[in-house]
């Protein structure tokens, strides 16, 4: 009898090991509820193609990370979703509305549902911290001044900068500016929050603060977050699903665990930060010896 029991647990464990990864993978690629559905997206800058026939789905209420080496067009993707750039072909459906085909007025209305945290913070330099956060409220709502004040102080309190309300953006450190920008981005409680390289150039403390804020914000409200980043550890820690972008397309996708365990050389090079691999260390150049010798001849 004891042998039979041991056999049974062994079989159970083996079955779980075989079934679970495929099970969770099929769950994550077939999202129950998709808020942004990008189909067949192609986009190029001049002669240089950035995206070639890319499909990306952003699940509702989750944190989705778009990762990849610099210069692969991650920020471009956010601008395409925000309608600031128009794709050469393909659809970007936000709850069924094709963003590139919206008129100017409709586009601005759709953008009221989006918040975006820019890499530089992009605070309005002629306004105080308070006025920066109040700006979207003043523009889009008819709320009385006391209520605007309450909302702004709540948002600033959430990012820990209620005391900095009277400072000008030039008086803030990089990390503080990004937190103020975050408070401004969530001022109208958007459905979709896009973060453009939120961790770049931050000291470890500011980085930790931002990671926590992004996670807490996502848990506290039911908005969808899209994070564009190449900071692996921070992003893996908070993302529910990751798209890895390189060479004009999605080279891998999955949960952080799936990507960390992936064995494709491209994914491994990026996830482990290897200097050479499918993405070469050297910019394309002619033969090294020839190049050096040519200088002599001249």
């Amino acid at each position, binding site marked *: 009898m004891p042998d039979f029991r041991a056999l049974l647990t062994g079989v159970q464990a083996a079955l779980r090991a075989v079934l679970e990864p495929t099970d969770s993978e099929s769950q994550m690629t077939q999202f129950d509820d998709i808020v942004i559905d990008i189909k067949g997206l192609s986009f190029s800058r001049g002669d240089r193609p950035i995206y070639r026939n890319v499909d990306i789905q952003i699940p509702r209420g989750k944190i989705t990370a778009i990762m990849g080496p610099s210069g692969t067009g991650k920020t471009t993707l956010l601008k395409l979703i925000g309608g600031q750039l128009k794709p050469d072909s393909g659809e970007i459906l936000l709850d069924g509305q094709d963003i590139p085909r919206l008129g100017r007025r409709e586009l*601005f*209305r759709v*953008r009221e549902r989006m*918040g975006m945290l820019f890499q530089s913070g*992009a*605070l309005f330099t002629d306004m105080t911290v308070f006025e920066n956060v109040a*700006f979207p409220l*003043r523009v889009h709502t008819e709320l009385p001044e006391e209520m605007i004040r309450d909302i702004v102080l709540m948002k600033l309190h959430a990012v820990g900068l209620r005391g900095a309300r009277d400072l000008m953006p030039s008086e803030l450190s990089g990390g503080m500016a990004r937190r103020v*920008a975050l408070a401004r981005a969530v001022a109208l409680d958007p459905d979709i929050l896009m973060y453009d390289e939120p961790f770049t150039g931050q000291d470890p403390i500011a980085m930790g603060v931002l990671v926590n804020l992004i996670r807490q914000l996502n848990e506290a409200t039911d908005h969808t977050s899209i994070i564009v980043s190449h900071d692996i550890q921070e992003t893996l820690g908070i993302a529910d699903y990751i798209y890895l972008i390189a060479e004009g397309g999605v080279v891998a996708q999955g949960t952080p665990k799936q990507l960390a365990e992936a064995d494709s050389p491209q994914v491994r090079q990026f996830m482990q930060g290897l200097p050479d691999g499918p993405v070469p260390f050297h910019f394309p150049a002619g033969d090294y010896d020839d190049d050096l010798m040519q200088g002599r001849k001249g």
Partner: protein
Amino acid sequence: MQMLPLLVRQIYFVGVQSLIIIMVSGLFIGMVLGLQGYTILVDYGSEQAVGQMVALSLVRELAPVVAALLFAGRAGSALTAEIGLMKATEQLASLEMIGVDPLRRIIAPRFWAGFISLPLLAAVFAVVGVWGGAMVGIEWLGIYEGAFWANMQNSVDFSEDVLNGSIKAMVFGFVVTWVAVFQGYDCVPTSEGISQATTRTVVYSSLAVLGLDFVLTALMFGDL
């Protein structure tokens, strides 16, 4: 979004803050006109006509043209640099993402402020210039005061001179501010791009002002 407070703020920046340079320049140009006019006209014994000469040169030509050139250098370049820097620091992009059209919020108030300010600045320029010419002519060179002013009043016609001068200033205001905001909005958002755009604003708008001045003068005064 209320447009008026934004417009008033921009009129302060591009108009009111240009007053000093416009007034000082107007004063010196009026004084030089008085001095040069006197040295030429006194040979013919008609130095009383200095008032007429100063006023007509200022109202028809120098006030709109020089004010526009100074305005391009003082306010136009500042507008281009400001808008260009807003573009470089993603402020324009973040306005768009907040759902506010930067053309309405940033560009329009600046454009209208320039269009409104330049004709007023040109008028101030003319007034101060006439005063400078009178100071040199009457106080220093001893032209008979009554003749100075009477000649001026008899010769300056409202529709021929003042109105045409104002039309010129309005056209220049339109052109200079248009060039300035366009160059800012269209610039390459790097430090080099902003510097080139600022230079282009001053060069293009100065050339446009001088070229258009000839065309307008030919149309307005060609048959005189």
